[in-house]
């Protein structure tokens, strides 16, 4: 009886120890980011998602693996560490590369066409559609048949019916 109890205890202890070991394998950390500080990395990513890589122009600096983007990411990390605000960092890049680095360009006279062009096109398109539809309705209303034409049409229709009945 006692021996049996001992065996159960041993098994229980063994299971317990195995449970203790579990975290070592099962709960291993996510891949360690390149930069040591995940907060800096997060801010850097948020910023670079709205910045254009000038080498591969349709990619964001966050996505791009170009050497240029690596350098800019490093620069941004350093500036975050130096307690620069997001605005200061973006301004730093705009000063050097122009508004072209921004995926969200500011509204100013040179970008009016970019921002409002589609609205203008839409209004012009809608306007011409309305004008076209109005004119067409007038045309349709204008087409009214004379009494003689109506009779002729009816005669033709009746002829058709007779033909089918045969």
């Amino acid at each position, binding site marked *: 009886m006692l021996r049996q109890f001992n065996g159960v205890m041993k098994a229980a202890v063994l299971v317990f120890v195995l449970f203790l070991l579990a975290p070592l394998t099962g709960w291993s950390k996510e891949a360690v980011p390149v930069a040591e500080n995940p907060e800096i990395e997060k801010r850097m990513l948020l910023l670079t998602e709205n910045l254009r890589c000038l*080498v591969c122009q349709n990619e964001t600096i966050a996505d791009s693996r170009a050497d240029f983007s690596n350098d*800019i990411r490093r620069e941004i990390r350093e500036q975050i560490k130096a307690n620069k605000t997001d605005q200061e960092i973006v301004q730093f890049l705009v000063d*050097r*590369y*122009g508004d*072209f680095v921004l995926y969200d360009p500011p509204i100013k006279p040179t970008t009016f066409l970019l921002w409002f062009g589609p609205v203008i096109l839409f209004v012009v398109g809608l306007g011409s559609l309305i004008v076209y539809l109005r004119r067409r309705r007038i045309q349709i209303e204008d087409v009214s048949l004379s009494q003689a034409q109506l009779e002729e049409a009816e005669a033709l229709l009746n002829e058709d019916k007779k033909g089918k009945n045969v």
Partner: protein
Amino acid sequence: MMRYLIPLFAFMVLAAFLLVGLTLNPRQVPSPLIDKPAPKFQLNHLHQPEQIMSSDENLGKVWMLNVWASWCVACRDEHPLLVQLARTGIVPIYGLNYKDERTTALQWLKRYGDPYAISIVDSDGKVGIDYGVYGVPETYVIDKKGIIRHKQIGPVTVDSLEKTIIPLIKELQQQA
């Protein structure tokens, strides 16, 4: 008649826009640094690494800053032109060796000729960022007051030298 003219007119406007679009180069992003003071730097010489060059040394003269690297293929295209230009003595050219290895850079200059008054080293590309460099080769014309007057993105060509760069340099040299 108008019914046929309007689509034709619309097509011609569209075609004109597309035609102009064909001649534009999306890689040439106008630099915001034109007519702004050239960013200051203090960098080690390539040939004598113990010596440091400061950008302030060039105040009072018109000079060219050419950004190059031994890994840059297009730099090889423009290099003979720079060597020729240096020989004429019109303008001193300073070479910014951008993100390069010292030994390969020195070998490269030995092989293709060295047009540079001084070569300086920007191994981590920090000064490159200050100058808005994103594709080597790039060439800047800087005036006597240290203001950037022109930026050539991509290799210098005979055309760009004769039509733009050299006339501009001569004009800038006339200024006080």
